[in-house]
């Protein structure tokens, strides 16, 4: 039985794992870089070990150092979170070799999932439909061009080692293909030191729909419903919801069956996610398996009632999944907004720095997973996800309106956030009607609409802003004109 877990991660996901461990009486070990002395995961864990410099390569990606801490702290198991080492099969293998339970799939299975080519092969054998494209790796840009012309532009160039939006390029003609080939190769080498590229048909007006699944060491496998994650920017998810507005019970079961087959085909253990493109014609095409806990897992927790981290621990302990597929019932509607530190108007450029003040929303059906606290810092060294705001409702409308109210309550001083954009999106008729697709932002001019909404907000707040300016000005004037000591008009000292 796992009694002590090292969390090889930081930020909100480290806190998320700690929370379940605490409730289960499992000890936790945090690791932290120079940048994270003052971070919440250090404060919440049973123990915390410093592992190096701020740059991920010198701390959160340093396998040897993390192994050293696991040995020193006597941990039984490691939870990798998402990102960092979570889908690194070398690290999983290193843990296996040192008799530390890696909370995730076995290294071989992870390797298979991570290799888009081999994975596609496995899916074809398991009769899980995949997107038309190169049967395997392309040999070079010439080969890529040949295949692109066979299946027809636009096509997508994907690094086998990419993920989460990185190492992907959509190209519309031979010229773009050659440029894209170069940059995808470069990005992949910069990130993981190697590159290998696939070509796939790029489908338009597609939806990104993924399935949570779980498979135990006894071969039991369940899917835990779909999540629709179509609202994205630069292939990065922004808003997720479950159920998907276009998945009915029949589709849910039918595709869910494919997902169970997919998990078995790669001999997957623990929790994973099977991602699909859902084409405008209703077809589902398998894209890849994310071999880890997803950022957006809380919406699945809301509608299933499950604690997915607890389920991960159970499976890692070798226990059978404590329920059957038929026991799972979807209850209500959940939405997640990823609250990023970024400037929507600067092409989502990261916005970092100290956060002197924060108000975290709460209320019935509201959950906020975040590392923010008043006085914390948003670091430029790590990803821009500050918080995950998740709401549940008995109806989609209830979850949506609760999300809007919570977004309004969410106050983060000091950095730009994606909150205003989400308010515009959630208020739009297109979102309400479920007209989702991965090009949603562009398709419905959301950035322009945000500009309009912000101007309207400024109009509404102008009188109050002027009032604040009047008080500020008059106070200043009064200080100049009379002695501060006997200025009884003002009880406030602005120094």
């Amino acid at each position, binding site marked *: 039985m796992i009694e002590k877990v090292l969390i090889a991660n930081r930020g909100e996901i480290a806190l998320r794992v700690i929370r379940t461990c605490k409730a289960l009486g499992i000890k936790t070990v945090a690791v932290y870089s120079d940048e994270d002395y003052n971070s919440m995961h250090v404060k919440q864990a049973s123990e915390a070990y410093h592992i190096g410099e701020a740059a991920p390569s010198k701390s959160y990606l340093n396998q040897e150092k993390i192994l050293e801490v696991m040995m020193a702290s006597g941990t039984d198991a490691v939870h990798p979170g998402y990102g960092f080492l979570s889908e690194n099969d070398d690290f999983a293998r290193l843990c296996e070799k040192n008799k530390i339970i890696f909370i995730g799939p076995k290294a071989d299975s992870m390797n298979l999932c991570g290799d888009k080519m081999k994975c596609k092969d496995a899916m074809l054998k398991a009769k899980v439909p995949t997107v038309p494209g190169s049967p395997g790796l392309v040999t070079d840009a010439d080969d890529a061009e040949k295949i692109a012309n066979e299946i027809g532009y636009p096509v997508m160039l994907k690094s086998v080692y990419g993920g989460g939006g990185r190492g992907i390029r959509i190209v519309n003609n031979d010229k773009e293909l050659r440029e894209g080939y170069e940059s995808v190769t470069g990005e992949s080498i910069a990130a993981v030191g190697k590159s290998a590229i696939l070509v796939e048909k790029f489908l338009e007006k597609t939806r990104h729909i993924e399935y949570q699944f779980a498979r135990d060491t006894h071969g039991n496998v369940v899917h835990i419903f779909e999540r629709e994650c179509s609202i994205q920017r630069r292939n990065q998810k922004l808003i997720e919801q479950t159920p998907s507005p276009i998945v009915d019970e029949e589709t849910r079961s039918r595709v869910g069956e494919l997902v169970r087959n997919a998990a078995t085909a790669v001999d997957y253990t623990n929790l994973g996610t099977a991602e699909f493109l859902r084409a405008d014609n209703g077809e589902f095409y398998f894209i890849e398996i994310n071999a880890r806990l997803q950022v957006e897992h809380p919406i699945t927790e809301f509608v299933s009632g499950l604690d997915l981290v607890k389920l991960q621990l159970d499976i890692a302990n070798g226990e059978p999944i404590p329920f059957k597929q038929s026991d799972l019932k979807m209850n209500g509607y959940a939405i997640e907004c990823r609250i990023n530190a970024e400037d929507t108007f600067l092409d989502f450029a990261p916005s970092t720095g100290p956060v002197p003040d924060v108000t975290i929303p709460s209320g019935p059906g509201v959950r906020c997973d975040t590392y923010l606290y008043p006085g914390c810092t948003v670091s430029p060294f790590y990803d821009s996800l500050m918080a995950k705001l998740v709401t549940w409702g008995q109806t989609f409308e209830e979850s949506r309106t609760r999300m809007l109210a919570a977004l309004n309550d969410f106050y983060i001083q000091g950095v730009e956030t994606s909150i205003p954009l989400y308010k515009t999106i959630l208020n739009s008729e297109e979102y309400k009607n479920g007209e989702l697709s991965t090009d949603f932002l562009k398709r419905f001019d959301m950035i322009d609409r945000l500009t309009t909404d912000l101007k309207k907000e400024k109009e509404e*707040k*102008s009188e*109050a*802003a002027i009032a*604040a300016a*009047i008080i500020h*000005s008059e106070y*200043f004037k009064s200080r100049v004109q009379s002695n*501060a000591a006997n200025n009884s008009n003002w009880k406030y000292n602005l*120094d």
Partner: protein
Amino acid sequence: MDYKITDIEKSFDGKIVENLGNNDYVIKINDNEHKLKIISMNSTGIEFILNQKYHKAKYLDQSTNEINIVIDNVPITINRHTHFDEVVFKHSGGAGAGNAQLSLKSQIPGKVVSISVAEGDSVKKGDVICTLESMKMQVSVKAHKDGVVKSIKIKETATVAKGDPIADIE
């Protein structure tokens, strides 16, 4: 005083009409009077109730003629068509009877950001002698009379209190 919000292309005339005590004020924006109650206030912000509605404002990047406010989470830049420099000038002895006095005094407490003259320089009434920062705003202190700067009493980055001498001008 005149205020302008460029983003929405609107101008406002605003002032305090009356201090009712107990942190209650009557303010006037354009032609309308409003009740305003200050709940709390410091150099970085203010919480107040305006016409029965609570507001929270943060003051950012203030200067004499521009102030960036985040009000109820909405960032708004306000231009002030103000005469702060003139107010400071007047009260530093720049107007009327003070003309004969030797010493230019600071009428506000603040930090010395820069000194624009050297000892021995000839200055004209209204020339900038130094710039102070107070309440995060930069304010010029100007000569109250024509003359020669006999001595400078301040140093850069030092703090001056209200009434402290800035320079002697003869």
